[in-house]
């Protein structure tokens, strides 16, 4: 597979190996330390207001912001499933299946870029990408905007919040983003511990922390308050099994290659998700995905961009073995090496990762107002 590109990759890898090996010791000292999570950044052009958040909460649950009015944000970001979707691949629009694992909304407010390969620069631009994608919401601006106009409560809220004479679809995404910025968790056991509560972590979790920051060196990527460096790596996560077992997943896989604009040559031969490559079109970015946060992962199984692992132990075992193999293994990061952790140490590490999650976040599902005929303009 992709044999024509191998040469270029190998020379890049040669450089990649030489430099970090020398720099490794120094670099690990420079990793931003784990830190308690503060308030999320609020963009200056979309300030939070109570009414906007309330509007966003309603829209987040409203299936009318999707093609056939069956699929809301909450359909694939289900609060009962960790504000994600509990299957390897997200369920997708009716008649389709998605091609990646659904990520949690919790703490999405802190990411610089959204989606597994960072293709959206803000929550405001993530929401329409999801609502409009053929295998996600499959909605279209005109129909969705038109629908909003026929819901009197929305007309009033869009007017109050945005001064819209008629609800504008771009403002729907702003309201949803504002709501999502309230879905944060800053008081996990780890946060409490890092703020000085020495009893917030168990003995086992403390041992796990030592591994995390030491021999297992998870912190080289999972660092800072969000436990992610927001960089892109190929860990050798194996391709999704669904692509071999599920015809609808095979369809979507090929569709995504076209939608992401690969060459016909690549379209014909590719059999795995090339991740960051779709954005950069750099062969050396094939198979790279953004380091996800470890926060709230207690509730968001399965894990990895394609849901390859069904619990945290599987994930840690994967790292313990030094990562895996995929179609783009030429690009595999050398930061991942076999760790030689014992079963007890693996359990300690998993226990520590669980400290990145506090209680499950549940909110009341809003009652959504129905369509109403539009008053006559003359009335």
């Amino acid at each position, binding site marked *: 597979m992709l044999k024509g590109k191998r040469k270029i990759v190998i020379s890049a890898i040669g450089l990649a190996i030489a430099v970090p090996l020398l720099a490794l010791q120094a670099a690990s000292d420079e990793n931003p330390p784990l830190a308690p999570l503060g308030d999320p950044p609020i963009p200056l052009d979309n300030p939070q207001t109570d009414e906007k958040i309330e509007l966003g909460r309603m829209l987040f649950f409203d299936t009318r912001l999707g093609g056939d009015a069956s699929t809301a944000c909450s359909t694939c970001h289900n609060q009962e499933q960790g504000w994600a979707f509990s299957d390897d691949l997200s369920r997708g629009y009716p008649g389709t299946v998605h091609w990646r694992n659904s990520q949690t909304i919790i703490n999405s407010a802190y990411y610089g870029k959204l989606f597994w390969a960072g293709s959206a620069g803000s929550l405001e631009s993530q929401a329409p990408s999801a609502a409009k994608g053929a295998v996600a919401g*499959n909605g279209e601006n005109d129909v969705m905007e038109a629908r909003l106009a026929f819901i009197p409560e929305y007309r009033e809220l869009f007017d109050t919040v945005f001064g819209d004479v008629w609800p504008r679809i771009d403002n729907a995404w702003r309201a949803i983003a504002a709501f999502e910025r309230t879905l944060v968790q800053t008081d996990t056991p780890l946060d409490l511990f890092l703020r000085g509560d020495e009893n917030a972590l168990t003995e086992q979790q403390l041992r796990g922390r030592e591994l995390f920051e030491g021999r297992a060196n998870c912190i080289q990527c999972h660092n800072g308050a969000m436990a992610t460096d927001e960089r892109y790596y190929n860990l050798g996560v194996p391709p999704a099994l669904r692509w071999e077992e599920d015809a609808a997943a095979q369809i979507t896989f090929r569709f995504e290659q*076209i939608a992401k604009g690969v060459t016909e040559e690549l379209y014909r031969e590719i059999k795995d998700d090339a991740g960051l490559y779709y954005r950069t079109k750099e062969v050396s970015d094939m198979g790279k995905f953004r380091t996800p946060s470890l926060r709230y992962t207690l509730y968001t199984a399965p894990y990895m961009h394609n849901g390859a692992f069904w619990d945290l132990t599987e994930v840690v075992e994967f790292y313990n073995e030094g990562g895996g193999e995929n179609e783009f293994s030429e690009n595999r990061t050398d930061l991942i090496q076999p760790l030689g952790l014992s079963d007890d140490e693996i359990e300690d590490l998993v226990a520590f990762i669980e400290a990145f999650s506090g209680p499950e976040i549940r909110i009341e599902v809003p009652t959504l107002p129905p369509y109403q005929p539009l008053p006559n303009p003359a009335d």
Partner: protein
Amino acid sequence: MMSVFRSSRLLRAGVAAAIGMLAALTTAQGEELGPVPQIETEAARVELGKRLFFDRRLSGDAAISCASCHIPERGFSDGLPLSAAYPGSLGFRNTPTLINSAHRAAWFHDGRLGTNLNDVTREMITEDYLMNMDMRLMQERLKQDPVYVEMFAAAGYGEPSNGGVRKAIPEYLKTLISRNSLFDQGAMSDAAQSGFAIFTGVAGCSNCHSGARFTDDEIHNTGVPDNPEIWRDPMRHATFVAYAMFMGVENYMNIRRDPGAHVRGHAADGSDIGTFLTPTLRELTQTGPYMHNGVFATLEEVVDFYNAGGGDDPNKDPRLVPLELSKQQRTDLIAFLQELSGDPLVGPEFVWEEPIPTEYEIIDDWRDTPN
């Protein structure tokens, strides 16, 4: 377009008077009165187009096919005043028949496409309130069905593709041609013959309803009354708003009236507001309700409407004046209209009768099979 008008049959039917009017009945496209010409097609392409036409997987959520609204047993319309449209939406216009659509010069009630059925097919499949399909996804669905892989190849279209769909469905539509009406066979009843004379004579219907399909393919304003259901039902009204927004209609939130072919001409003085393409009069017995908004349930209502000089509209075509037809004349006119309907286009020649799978087959050796 070659005429296959058989003058001997008409003469035998005793409507020789019609012959003299033929010049006047010739459309702008040069189509002459008589049977609608058949169109040559390629069988493999027609078969492919036929299967696609009945395949629900051509819509975004795989819930509807072309045939959901263009039902063969209803003359390839749906029998509803206003179309059902895509799930989550409801239509704001009447579903037109597809019979003889391959001969049209423009499509949709507003004539917004005047190119070819290839474009019409694309519009229907991708429009969000019609079939809401991303054709890139559609292509990959079709590639997952071995039957299509074979049929596209047999049709000479290579592997399943969007372009192939946009060729095959029109090829199938070319087979949907009216046939064997009493009019075409020269076998009209006395009442219909009398109605034909009224149609071309005092009633002046043939001013617009000319040629083999009984349409000039032009736009006219006849003052068809509004269908209030469009504005009463938020899901219909919302579809109208989405349409009007996309088509660049001014003040679309405040109008309560279908601007029709104004979306095509955008006349600065608004004189084309409320114009619509003249519909065919073929197959009327199968295709009610009538008018672009389905506002008339019966042909009686339609004829009464024209007898009264059409509706009330500042832009109404001045040729529409009260006709003062007698009851007998109106009955005869309707008899004529009814005898423009021919054989229903049903059965295996026109309908894909084998089951079409709703699921897809797994490609077993996926990793080693080129995409």
